[in-house]
């Protein structure tokens, strides 16, 4: 009998990602919850500031990223909660699939969800905060994608840990938020430059910081995540 070669890392990642997206697509519960949660936070921020258009426009980037960050906690927590029923994560591990593929699929899935959410929130920002675009749409998508990637990599590692600990809902933000401060700062600055113009040509350095953050934490995630889910 001819021995079948086990599927490679990328193939496994793709299969797992497809599985997660399929589960999500069948109910669309997570995406719906995320959208309404993010909408509610954006509304709250605009009420907290009051009807000052100039002030709202100036803070739009910061509020968008805070909205995404707060929603990401829901999304990240949910991505491992669906594996807890019937010990599905053990099933996935025994399939057998590479633990690094599990990380890539989970982090990739979270990135896709958050990116979708952020794109859906753009019209809301136009309506609520009256934003204008000073740079191209491509640059906007670049910032959104890099920011969502930056939240997802450490977020996936930490939600895998928090999901099995006591007080998991407290633990994830407690661990994740301080870590994300540099990424959040860079994303907000870059976002504001996209919206308000970049006379000092700072866009490149903030995007560079986001890129470096992604490189470090995706690298650490791939190396460390297998240790988190081993039994």
């Amino acid at each position, binding site marked *: 009998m001819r021995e079948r070669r086990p599927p490679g890392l990328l193939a496994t990642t793709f299969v797992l990602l497809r599985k997660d997206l399929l589960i999500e697509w069948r109910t669309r519960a997570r995406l719906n919850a995320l959208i309404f949660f993010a909408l509610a936070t954006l509304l709250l921020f605009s009420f907290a500031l009051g009807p000052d258009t100039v002030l709202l426009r100036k803070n739009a980037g910061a509020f968008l990223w805070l909205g995404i960050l707060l929603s990401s906690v829901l999304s990240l927590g949910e991505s491992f909660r669906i594996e807890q029923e019937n010990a599905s994560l053990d099933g996935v591990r025994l399939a057998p699939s590479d633990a690094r593929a599990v990380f890539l699929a989970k982090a990739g899935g979270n990135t896709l969800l958050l990116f979708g959410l952020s794109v859906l929130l753009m019209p809301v920002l136009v309506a609520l905060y009256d934003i204008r675009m000073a740079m191209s749409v491509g640059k906007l998508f670049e910032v959104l994608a890099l920011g969502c990637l930056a939240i997802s990599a*450490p977020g996936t590692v930490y939600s895998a840990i928090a999901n099995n600990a006591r007080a998991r809902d407290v*633990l994830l933000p407690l*661990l994740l938020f301080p870590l994300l*401060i540099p990424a959040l700062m860079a994303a907000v600055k870059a976002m504001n430059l996209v919206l308000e113009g970049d006379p000092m040509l700072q866009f490149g350095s903030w995007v560079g910081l986001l890129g470096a953050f992604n490189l470090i934490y995706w690298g650490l995630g791939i190396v*460390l995540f297998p*240790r988190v889910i081993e039994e």
Partner: protein
Amino acid sequence: MLEKVRKVLPWVGLAGLVSGAYWALLWAPPAWDMSDVQRIFYIHLPCMFMALSLLTINFVAAVTYLLKPSWGADAMAEASAEVGLMFGLLGTTLGSIWGRPTWGVYWSWDPRLTTVAILLVAYAGYLALRKFIEDPERRAVWSSVVAIISAVDVPIVYFSVRWWRSLHQVQSSPQTVDHNMVFAFRWQAFAVLFLTIWFVWTRYRLARVRLAREVALPPELPPAVPAGA
């Protein structure tokens, strides 16, 4: 013998701090640009230095645990993180007391202060995580992972004053500083070092005792009382 050394260490450290107060507060010359306010530096710098060193030790202990699991590495990680966080908080508080007369504010969001704030909150989260997991083996693995991820910030704190334009001054070199200041500083640094070794040593022993109790088998049940006795 070792136990005797451990018992003597805090007294050596305390004596060093008391005598060091004389060297630092009265004997060393005042700084030319900020007079006596600068003298807080003789305790601020040793504290921050110990904090960054201990968090580096924490990183090494975490990597050691992941490569070759041992309760010693886990206890060392716990001890170094806790004492390191304490020195970090102390040093940051002292620095902000110094900042008020010098910069006019207690706190400013410049690169050095921002990265230190991230560092302190990240390690507070690390210690909280350790409290939240009951299974000692899982706790050791997961907290090692979190320690390695948090340690990314340690070199950034150290180099932040060189990489970005910061309100905080860059590291001085002993060659450019009055030798009396260097002497007073070294005296204080060694006093704090002795105290640090004592803290970590004692905390490590405590962690070992707790771990031993956690992984120990439950005590034997009392022998059943024979019927009719």
